[in-house]
């Protein structure tokens, strides 16, 4: 039996780039796993009914019983969470969803766009394959140093050229070099990655986002179209094979 919402204790919650925060929480001890790479938690940082719904945030890292989240402040929910400090409580439900396939072998590319870097840390640590890391940002690059020790090479791009390649990260990616590509980021980026890889016959694994209500597979609010019908991002995903996702325009 899994536990419902648990009270996480905030260990730290610090801004690491503009609008980007790193949050560390600890949970009451249980024997259960705190989660696998690619899984996520639903967060509720408020006791009240506004905002109403919890917010899904990926596991960025787990170590010594502390879960790290990396999040971007987009709207009200993430704003409220960004105001919490050490000692404050945060309600969390998880780990949820189906994470990345950790059995991949050979040379693998990890591709992230913006805050899509979040799940890559824990993934890079836990995936044994040889990994190159491609990370694109709009303006500022962040959190890359956390990956250094766990990957082979790092490729960086920023849209404004402030660091690394000026342009999109997909400009740098050479799919044919890899046995598989794992991507997390904005839909247009993931779509591009999947197209490029399909062309080269390289399998892709992408972490999808969608609005969620329950987070546990019950409401059917987060479904996406796939080649084998509607699938729930929170249950069959968030990680899908790039080939099966039907991107709408």
């Amino acid at each position, binding site marked *: 039996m899994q*536990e419902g*919402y648990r009270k996480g204790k905030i260990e730290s919650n610090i801004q690491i780039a503009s609008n980007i925060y790193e949050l560390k929480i600890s949970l009451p001890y249980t024997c259960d796993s705190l989660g696998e790479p690619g899984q996520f938690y639903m967060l509720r940082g408020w006791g009240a*009914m506004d905002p*109403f719904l919890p917010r899904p945030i990926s596991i960025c890292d787990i170590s010594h019983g502390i879960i790290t989240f990396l999040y971007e402040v987009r709207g009200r929910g993430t704003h409220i969470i960004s105001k919490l400090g050490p000692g404050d409580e945060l309600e969390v439900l998880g780990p949820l969803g189906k994470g990345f396939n950790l059995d991949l072998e050979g040379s693998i590319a990890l591709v992230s766009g913006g805050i899509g870097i979040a799940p890559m840390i824990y993934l890079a640590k836990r995936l044994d394959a040889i990994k190159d890391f491609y990370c694109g940002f709009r303006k500022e690059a962040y959190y890359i140093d956390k990956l250094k020790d766990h990957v082979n090479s790092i490729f960086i791009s920023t849209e404004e050229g402030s660091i690394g390649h000026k342009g999109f990260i997909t400009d740098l990616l050479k799919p044919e070099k890899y046995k598989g590509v794992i991507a997390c980021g904005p839909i247009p980026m993931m779509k591009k990655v999947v197209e490029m890889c399909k062309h080269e016959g390289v399998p892709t694994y992408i972490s999808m986002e969608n609005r969620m209500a329950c987070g*546990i597979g019950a409401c059917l609010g987060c479904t996406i179209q796939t080649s084998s019908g509607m699938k729930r991002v929170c249950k069959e995903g968030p990680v899908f094979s790039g080939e099966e996702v039907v991107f709408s325009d």
Partner: protein
Amino acid sequence: MIDMKVNICNIEFKNPVIAASGTFGFGQEYNEYFCLSRLGGICTKGLTLYEKEGNKGIRIHETTGGLLNSIGLQNPGIDKFIREELPFLEKQDTIIIANVGGSSIEEYIGAVEKLNETSIDIIELNISCPNVKEGGMAFGIKSEIAYEVVLEVRQVRKKPLIVKLSPNAENIVHMAESCVKAGADGLSLVNTFSGMAIDIYGRKPVFDNIIAGLSGPCIKPIALRMVYEVARAVDVPIIGIGGIVDYKDAIEYIMAGAWAVQIGSGNFINPTLSLDVIQGMERFMLDQGIKSLEEIRGVI
């Protein structure tokens, strides 16, 4: 000592807290969080005669104190439900209510006839889903049309029949009276309110269907008023639904005249909310010296 039991249409519920249709799947997901046998009952996700893919585009949009949804009755169809979901539900020691949707009388009848031959305890007829384009909506709005539907379904059904009312009904009391006259054994209300939201940057409705269904604590004052009015007008058992997020809300519904309650959107903010509500109701009754729900039902 505290008696939480309630008998609706000759079916005994161990307590008055039921999971609302469409917010609880077919129970499996919640079974990971608590033992479903602790619930008074479970309403299945809305079932239609044939499988439905549901709506495209955005399906969920948060609003102040609630959410709009446009799922569009995605479900496996009755046959697959019976084959793949019912066996699990049968094993739970709780009342199973099959929520049946449709866009024509024939579809309702077809679905009900199939459910007749199963172990489900009660049929809840959803005459009110706002999220299906082809129809279904009008059934929940005009009393005369609802009367027709209920009359026909009533003739084929071998299980107790609860009709789930839409708050979009032109006149909720007439609607309730018509359904009872047509043979409903009980009523549940409310389903979601027709609402909408606009993406002001995209200059278009958030939902492909434009209109979606509003639920959550935001609607509670209106839903409670409707339950109160209906409970005074008809003699069949009423199940109160709308915005319940704690035991106090549930007690309000009972005092307004409901026999039982359903919890919908509340499950999204806490998958074990139903248990909290059951426990809270028990504690309240104990504190207030209330021995059975009957004592406070419709007491105001």
